[in-house]
């Protein structure tokens, strides 16, 4: 099999939601049985778990990561194609089966996508897979033609020796009989032909003409559609159900109660929705979370005023601040946020004797498949995961308890028999369904000396941990890194620093959300620094550079200042800058802002500079920065999930949970540092700097300091 040798895992200390987490040791799926990769069975040449070369000269790369737009299908294929010297036009993709021994995320120990690790963990694995296949094709050509392997060349999918040429397809059958090289020779960066260049994405066509298949599109013979009614408050349970009216609706075939709520099954989606609307459910809310977010925020603010557990400390911050010539402090409030991927949560499960077919855009392929097998009471070996394109996630499709898969499996089991069940959440389920970015409150104090130099920062975060108690949390850890990451391990060196954390209990389920703790820590750090620089009469760019410990950080900040032409803007506009390092990658952004007709920031243009190591596919990197800017901006300006008295979520759909729209999207210009470091994340690092860059411009433009997110919140009017 393939021999993944040196994997750059150790260098990625902050790969998921913080540093030093040992992931995989305590995951609930246990030892999943290995299953053979099906994609190789019919192809003549399957040199390893990742490469399939067919007689028709196509090269299929087995993609071990979920593709929900962040580009791993193209990225992983780019790496393989380069080492293989394939032609880009012959590349195809297939999603991997649920198989940890072959396809685990090397940073997690199980299959999974998150923490912007897809390229980082796969980099050497994919290079080896491509190089190994290439060596075997060369050996096959040498054998066929009776020439020394060293004289055989490969370029753009053609194997040559003098006048003799052959395609990969021609050589596939012979190549399959060649010995697998123990340590294939990898290219030097100078030999790369695809890595570092724009290559077209492999999934753009099918995602343009409507033919890409998502889980929601799966059809099975005799399939029923199920929708669910959840409790009106988190933690509520079903007391009793009157389903007579629901069952009377044509097309509705059953109503069942499962721990997650009441499930209506019908012959089509519309009938299921109608049936759900006709349910009369009596809920037991005695154990539910009934506080409003207003109440929670007051409690969080009180907690953030106490020191909390020390997460990182440098010098003596109390002494440093006492000696400061000028001091400021601030309290920041960040709301719950829904991920709201365009495709709501869904799965299709078709039970059969001793197993099931499971269709999902799974983000934890083995974890989800194992969860389904346990609920159905069938062996993992009887399960087949049919991985689909996923219509977005932003973290939502990965839950530590495999909750999405568990609910779908329970709905399937409750229906009984071997009927395929397509379990679909409506948008209302999604917006009201929890697993939000946590509500978070920060307090921060800082000061400058008589020369204007920052003397120290004293920061406290109050919030709830979604990591504690899961298999993703080191039980011996004193605090949850995901709450404070970004304040801890920042790119800046302060003479004195203290970061504290106060963990609060909350019955609202929460989850990682694109860029996790960095969503709020970057905002606090970068907006507060900007105010301190003003207090100390320092330039926001030079001031940051002077504090930076790392040359790569300094370089992206200098680069963004170059491409934007500095921080001056024409009359009526202002520019703000922000920098943040997350998931191993460095991103700096400058935003140019005016006051919009709605009295909110109108962001005209964003310049970004990024260093994410070797830029495997600059086209995908630019797209991820553009998307990170848009996702971050939309939430910072408009989005908030609130709970009223009684704990009922007050938003329900895109009319009340407002998303960024076309007119609100700024122009985005991206400069990519031509780094030679091992690749790091790109799906998330584009997000953290945008909100503080806009806030810094907004303060310059209007004098308003926004510490209550979103900008549209009434307190900021």
């Amino acid at each position, binding site marked *: 099999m393939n021999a993944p040798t040196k994997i750059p895992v150790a260098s990625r200390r902050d790969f998921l939601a913080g540093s030093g987490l040992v992931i995989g040791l305590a995951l609930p799926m246990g030892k999943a049985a290995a299953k053979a990769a099906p994609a190789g069975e019919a192809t003549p040449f399957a040199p390893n778990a990742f490469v399939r070369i067919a007689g028709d000269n196509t090269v299929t790369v087995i993609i071990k990561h979920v593709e*929900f*737009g962040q*580009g791993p299908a193209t990225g992983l294929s780019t790496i393989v194609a380069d080492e293989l010297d394939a032609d880009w036009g012959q590349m195809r993709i297939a999603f991997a089966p649920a198989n940890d021994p072959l396809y685990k995320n090397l940073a997690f120990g199980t299959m999974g996508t998150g923490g912007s690790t897809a390229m980082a963990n796969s980099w050497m694995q994919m290079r080896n897979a491509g190089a190994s296949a290439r060596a075997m094709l060369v050996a096959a050509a040498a054998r066929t033609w009776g020439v020394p392997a060293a004289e055989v060349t490969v370029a753009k999918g053609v194997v040559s020796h003098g006048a003799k040429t052959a395609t990969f397809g021609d050589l596939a059958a012979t190549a399959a009989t060649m010995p697998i090289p123990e340590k294939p020779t990898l290219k030097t960066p100078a030999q790369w032909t695809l890595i570092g260049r724009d290559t*077209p*994405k492999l*999934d*753009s066509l*099918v*995602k*343009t*003409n*409507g*033919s*890409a*298949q*998502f889980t*929601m*599109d799966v*059809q099975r013979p005799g399939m029923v559609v199920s929708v669910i009614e959840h409790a009106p408050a988190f933690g509520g349970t079903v007391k009793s159900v009157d389903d007579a009216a629901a069952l009377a609706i*044509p*097309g509705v075939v059953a109503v069942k109660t499962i721990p997650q709520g009441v499930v209506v099954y019908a012959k*089509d*989606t*519309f*009938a299921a*929705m109608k049936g759900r609307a006709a349910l009369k459910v009596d809920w037991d809310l005695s154990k539910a979370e009934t506080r409003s977010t207003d109440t929670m925020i007051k409690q969080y603010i009180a907690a953030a005023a106490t020191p909390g557990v020390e997460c990182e400390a440098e010098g003596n911050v109390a002494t440093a601040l006492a000696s400061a010539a000028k001091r400021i402090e601030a309290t920041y409030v960040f709301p719950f946020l829904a991920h*709201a*991927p*365009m*495709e*709501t949560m869904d799965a299709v499960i078709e039970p059969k004797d001793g197993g099931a077919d499971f269709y999902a855009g799974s983000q934890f392929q083995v974890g989800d498949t194992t969860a389904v097998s346990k609920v159905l009471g069938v062996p993992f070996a009887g399960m087949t995961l049919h991985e689909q*394109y*996923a*219509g*977005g*996630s*932003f973290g939502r499709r990965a839950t530590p308890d495999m909750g999405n898969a568990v609910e779908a499996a329970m709905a399937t089991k409750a229906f009984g028999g071997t009927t395929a069940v397509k379990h*679909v959440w*409506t*948008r209302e389920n999604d917006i009201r369904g929890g697993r939000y970015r946590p509500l978070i409150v920060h307090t921060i104090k800082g000061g400058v000396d008589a020369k204007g130099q920052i003397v120290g920062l004293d920061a406290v975060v109050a919030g709830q941990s979604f990591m504690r108690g899961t298999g993703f949390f080191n039980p011996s850890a004193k605090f949850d890194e995901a709450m404070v990451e970004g304040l801890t391990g920042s790119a800046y060196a302060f003479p004195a620093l203290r970061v504290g954390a106060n963990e609060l209990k909350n019955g609202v389920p929460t989850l990682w959300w694109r860029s996790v703790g960095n969503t709020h820590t970057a905002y606090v750090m970068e907006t507060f620094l900007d105010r301190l620089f003003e207090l100390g009469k320092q330039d926001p760019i030079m001031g940051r550079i002077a504090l930076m410990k790392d040359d790569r950080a300094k370089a992206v900040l200098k680069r963004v200042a170059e491409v934007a032409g500095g921080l001056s803007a024409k009359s009526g506009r202002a520019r703000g800058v922000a920098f943040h390092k997350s998931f191993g990658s460095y991103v700096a952004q400058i935003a140019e802002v005016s006051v919009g007709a709605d009295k909110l920031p109108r962001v005209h243009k964003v310049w970004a500079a990024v260093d994410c190591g070797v830029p495997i596919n600059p*086209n995908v990197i630019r*797209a991820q920065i*553009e*998307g990170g*800017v*848009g*996702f971050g*901006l*939309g939430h910072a300006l408009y989005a908030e999930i609130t709970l009223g008295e009684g704990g009922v979520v007050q938003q329900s*759909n*895109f*009319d009340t949970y407002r*998303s*960024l*729209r*076309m*007119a609100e*999207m700024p*122009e*985005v210009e991206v400069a990519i540092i031509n780094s030679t470091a091992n690749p790091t994340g790109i799906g998330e690092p584009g997000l953290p700097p945008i909100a503080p860059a806009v806030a810094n411009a907004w303060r310059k433009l209007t004098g308003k300091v926004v510490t209550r997110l979103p900008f549209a919140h009434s307190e900021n009017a």
Partner: protein
Amino acid sequence: MATEFTLNGAAARFDGDPDTPLLWVLRDHLQLTGTKYGCGIAQCGACTVHLDGKNRRSCVTPIASVAGRSVTTIEGATGKTAEAVKAAWVAIDVPQCGFCQSGQVMSAIGLLAAKPNPTDADIDHGMAGNICRCATYVRIRQAIKDAAKHVETAA
């Protein structure tokens, strides 16, 4: 009480509940799954189709209201403008997750049919009803302009 209509140029009929939105008739009964469910309340545009040549949110369009009319879905989007839009989309790799893109493409075709040379303001207005959570808006805007230019030059 079947509803009869034209779908992608061919005769189609639906025998079920006349209240059923066109979206679910297409997806659940006629196996045309390119048209997507995103919100169900005409807020996101993922379900956009053309009804008698104009953009329409199929999630709030009861099938009964379609009787005798002509529906075009992403699967049936053909012609000069449609081909130009799709080619422009692929050329600059607009899609990320892709789930909203059928609706975006249909809205863009509808926009160009009404405004062959749209300004930025026309694009803001014409595409306002389509949400992309991946925020591919920069590339959508560019692709619409590229498609407009292509149609103009080819004409």
